[in-house]
């Protein structure tokens, strides 16, 4: 009886650890996205500061590619939107993961209690 509980506990524990890993991954990804978000915001602002006479380049690999101002602004804007969308997605994912990990925690606690009871009896 105690062994069964132990096995179940192990299984649940692994699931919980997996959830935790996913959660941490999601968190890291979100942080990266946030950094990109701020950066792109700054780019956007600095593009505003520049006028049309300046040539804008985009670094693609080892090549600096010339870009138009409007194109650049558009691209940056799109990138910003993309980043915000990604952040939202990751947020939702994180919430889901948190919820599931909470459930796992409860299950683990219950199993632990059972195990202790079983061990106590035996």
């Amino acid at each position: 009886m105690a062994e069964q509980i132990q096995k179940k506990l192990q299984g649940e524990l692994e699931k919980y650890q997996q959830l935790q890993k996913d959660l941490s991954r999601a968190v890291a990804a979100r942080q990266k996205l946030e950094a990109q978000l701020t950066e792109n915001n700054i780019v956007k602002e600095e593009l505003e500061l520049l006028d049309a006479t300046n040539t804008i380049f985009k670094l693609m690999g080892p090549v600096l590619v010339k870009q138009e101002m409007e194109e650049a602004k558009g691209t940056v804007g799109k990138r910003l939107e993309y980043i915000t969308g990604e952040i939202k997605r990751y947020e939702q994912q994180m919430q889901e993961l948190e919820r599931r990990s909470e459930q796992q925690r409860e299950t683990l606690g219950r199993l632990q209690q059972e195990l202790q009871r079983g061990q106590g009896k035996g």
Partner: protein
Amino acid sequence: MIPGTSEAGSTYGCSSKLEKPFHAGYSRDLRRVGTANVNKWDLGLVVTSCQEKIQHWKKVESDYEALQERLRTLPDKLSYDIMVPFGPLAFMPGKLVHTNEVTVLLGDNWFSKCSAKQAVELVEHRKKHVRKALDDLQKVMMNFESRAEFTEDLQRMSDAASDFVDIREEIEDDSIGTKGKYRTAHKPHSKPKVSNVFEVDFPVNGNDTKSVGHFQSEEELWARLEELERQETLLGELDRMPGTVETNGEDASSSEEEKEDKRTDLNGTYRAEDSLTQGNFHKQVTNSDLFGGQLNGSTYYHSDDEDDIDVGDNSVPTIFFSHTVEPKRVRINTGKNTTLKFSEKKEEAKRKRKNSSGNGHATPELPNIKTPADIYRVFVDVVNGEYVPRKSILKSRSRENSVCSDTSENSAAEFDDRRGVQRSISYDEATQSDNSEGVLEEEEEEEGQQQPPKKLPPSSGTAEAFSGTVIEKEPLSPSLIPHPVIAHPVLPTILEWKSDEVLSEASEEPPKRISKFKAARMQQPT
């Protein structure tokens, strides 16, 4: 700022490395700060990390300052002669041209060519961001610093105050937690405990047993309690017969008292039961086990205080607990349809008194009878598992519970027994409750004496008050009857003897004052 190429305009710009850590670290810090646990250790960590970041950002800002300076001075000349780095180890002489063309990294792999002045503006814009981050970090650091200081102060205070935070309550009474356990853990014990009686009986003097009992540590007694309880639960509940009381009382009276004495030190509420002579074991669990008016060595009670010690039947005196049971509310029909709480403790004490002739146990086991209602509360019979108020002795039912049935001999032992029995007789005589109490105490004190006067009215002395012997030897006149009745309400045996001849009158005169035994005897022959 990267030194510009020799041909193209100078290129500069914060490397994305700078930008990214700026933002990532910033956001990371904020996130971390937002979720940091507030405890001393964490606060310290947060504060130090904040300080590090502040240092970092300050460096960045100073770099930007230097960059701005360079940008301002760069366009002064059309070209500069410089030593151009050639790989990590070599330099080459070269010229810095197009001093006004600056390729600025805007971030996220975006570049733009702009003039030096525009570059300066961009740098200024970046510096704004840096300063914002610095300010936030400073604020956070200040907050956490204050909190850390507070916790430090608190710790210092608590340390100085010898750690009053740590409050420990040592529960010495294990019976509460272990009651259920005791109940279920039965040890098979079939033999009544004889040694207990013996070891108790040896010292005639109550003091000896007390000392005997005293050497047992509390833990041992608790263990004994446990064992006793288990035994009893194992053996099951046995109804006590009235007849057994006397026989029991003879053997167990003193022993019980002794045991009780022993245990009173532990817990005034526990009762040592001597089940040896009877071989009766009572379950210690339910209130229904309690028998009113019937006293056996093995009876036990559920006290309000939860600790009932039943003497087991092993060679080792064991003490059982009984669980804490709220005293059952026994509807005692006192004529007013009142309900009095059945106090097991009092029942126990009563039973003890019944059994033990020289009741040596201490006052705590006495029923605390202070009012007439207490009497009804204390002396409640248990009939068929139900609590029935002890009826008047004049009623036929009381005869069933009459404890005192054997009053033929006039021996000291019997006296003791009778004394115990009488003590256990319900004090239906409300008026004499106090008196009986006092008498009981006196009796207990005199437990050691072989021939103690049975009951001494508190006012009178010892020997002279005890008219029992006198009464027994002679057929007493009615006049004598009321006297003992009044003086010794708990001496039914004496009265019983008289009752055959005279008590009939006495019983009627003060109906309350006549013990039920007397009344029973009165009615029996008739």
